[in-house]
């Protein structure tokens, strides 16, 4: 198993508040990691550190042994992020948003062509259908979609990126039970779809201890610190409760 992501001695503070304290964490290929913790425990911050959009105050983050800040664009593209706020380009259509996930594999002209809606609609269709949305949505502007539909467009965009590691920030919140399972299956690569390359490795933050059986490792955050890191097989229920207790 190759070590993909490696966080060492991470500290993050905003003002006097400490968001993350002394985080040591490494994720190897093939691992499906669930990230648990109360709201405000530092899950979003940890994911931002992991994808490089936030610089830690101290500590080092490495991807395959190279510091994140030194990664080339083509290496950076191996880390995909499904943001909690989705971060779709509102004015663009579904197809253009999905294609935006592939910008890292193409040049500026491709990006221009995508803006004009000229590029690879067929490919988008496969990703869109993988997330359970119908093809008729391809040309709809994302601002006209419902919350659940938008979430699935964001997932399609992440898949389009062909990454090795998927970081997802509460991808299941706001989904109905049926959709929750479907999306989770998809993100964890348990639903096999031809021609779509789903990242083998993932770090997904969530609030649902009942879904842990789909993962093989759990990390618990409390007040910015890792208080739990073990395989799902060895997990005792009280350990989960402890995460959500006030104190």
């Amino acid at each position: 198993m190759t070590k993909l992501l490696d966080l060492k001695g991470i500290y993050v503070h905003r003002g006097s508040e400490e968001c993350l304290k002394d985080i040591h964490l490494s994720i190897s290929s093939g691992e499906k990691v669930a990230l648990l913790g109360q709201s405000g425990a530092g899950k979003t911050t940890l994911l931002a550190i992991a994808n490089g959009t936030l610089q830690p105050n101290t500590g080092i983050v490495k991807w395959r042994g190279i510091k994140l800040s030194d990664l080339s664009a083509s290496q950076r593209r191996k880390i995909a992020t499904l943001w909690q706020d989705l971060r779709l380009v509102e004015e663009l259509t579904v197809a253009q948003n999905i294609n935006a996930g592939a910008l890292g594999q193409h040049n500026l002209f491709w990006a221009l062509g995508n803006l004009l809606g000229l590029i690879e609609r067929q490919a988008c269709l496969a990703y869109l259908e993988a997330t359970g949305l119908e093809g008729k949505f391809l040309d709809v502007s994302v601002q006209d979609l419902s919350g659940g539909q938008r979430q699935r467009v964001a997932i399609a965009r992440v898949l389009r990126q062909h990454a090795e590691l998927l970081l997802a920030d509460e991808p299941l919140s706001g989904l109905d039970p049926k959709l929750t399972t479907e999306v989770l299956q998809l993100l964890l690569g348990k639903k096999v779809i031809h021609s779509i390359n789903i990242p083998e490795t993932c770090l997904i933050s969530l609030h649902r201890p009942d879904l842990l059986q789909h993962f093989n490792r759990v990390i618990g955050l409390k007040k910015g610190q890792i208080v739990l890191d073990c395989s799902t097989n060895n997990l005792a229920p009280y350990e989960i409760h402890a995460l959500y207790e006030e104190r």
Partner: protein
Amino acid sequence: MRQPNLAAPIITILPALALIPVISSVLAGAHNGGLNILYRFLSASIQPSLEPIVLQSAWRGIQITIATALLGWVISTLIGTILGLLSSNIFWQVFELSQWKGSLLRKLLAIPRSIHELIWGLLLLQLFGISQWVAIIAICIPYSCLVARVLSDQIDSLDHRALIALQQSGASPFSALITTLVPSMIPVINSYGGYQLECALRGATILGVFGLGGVGTELQLTLQSLEFREMWTSLWMLGVVMISFETFLNWYRQYPPLTNKYEKQLLVFIGAILTTIIISILWLKILDVNLVSTFKWHPSPLPTIVEMKEAFHELPLITLIGTTILLTILAAGFSIGLPPLGMMLWPTKTGAIIQSSIWSLLRLIPPPLSALLLLLCTNPNISVAALALGLQNLGVMGRLLKEGISHQSNNLYIAIHSSGSNNRLAWLYGHLSPYSSSYLAYAAYRTDVLLRETAVVGVVGGVGLGWQLQESISSFNWPQVIWITTAYSILTLIGESLSRKVRQYWIKSTTKDPQILFFQK
């Protein structure tokens, strides 16, 4: 903290008080000696000269003006877009470079922007000799800086999370930038560009009045020779062109297939840019306007420090600046206050139609020409210059008021009207009141524009920096020219920051340019 709702509409009307000193001094000097000339001017409007040679020359003039305006507009839109991107904070952030370069560029661009296109035209004429490019570049310099500022403000006020997400996913900075910015900026460029096109047309006309060719030259020459019938030939043509531009742009802004589809807007934008460049260059070529051969660089030797010192002492700068400011305040006052006052006093349908046609006419006549016409009926003083300058802006403010009010809902007006108040009060509280803070914010911006425009009416009665600039240029006194241009620039920069503050006061929730707010409605 909101202003009490009643205060703002009253404040919109208050500036009209500037009319009191202006009108009283104009009336005090009024005489009937010029009435017959004025009568000749007005009666010539219904019998413009239709001699083939006059028609031909006016037609040629109007074509040169349109082609110049188009070319100046399209180039400044392109350059402005690039500069706008370069001077936004986000651009430097995305490339992980220090942002001071962006803000430095933004500050530097304020300088060329602070100088009116006419001054640029007169200066460039000295450096490059006679070429239609001088007019085109003179329009380009301030306009591209203006577009740049509007765009960079707009870009920095956007939500950048999607941009960060795309960049994190491995997209190159440029790809990420265009994917997130183009869709939201294209509508802005499209609507703001339309407005700029109208300004460019007025700018090209003014440049013509000062001898840079086109219909403005035709107007100026015929007016100076008091050949009113020939003048009206050009004026009517200009009017038809202006009104069809305004109508077209209005239609275009609201054209349903384009309002939501940014892709079509992008195609229209690229198409419009390419066609405009090609058509206007070919057009000037067909008109036999020399575009290429005459464009050479001919600098004058730089003045020495001693000469600069000498020139500084020769110029009565304090007086010049003082009169320039006074001129701005008077002109701004009545051009801001009069449209709402007029609409309030005469709110009927007929009233609105008559007033808006008067506004159209006022937008049409370049200030130096109205100044000369006014001078025929009254004694020369600063009020004449203020009146001439203010009248064109009155036309602009009037149209803005009309369109702004027509965009808002009628419910309040109906409610107030049905509660038994008379037409005037219903108009004041129902129509003006909800719109007044945007109107005032825009008015602050317009005052800024007016300050720059004082350059064009200086000649009348020898008032202000504008007049002195003309005089110094005609004496080829470069040190003086440098001082005056600097004074103008500083004055405008101060004015701009003041008007920004005022605007923020009236539109607290946003830092956007009121121009943009207006067109986004």
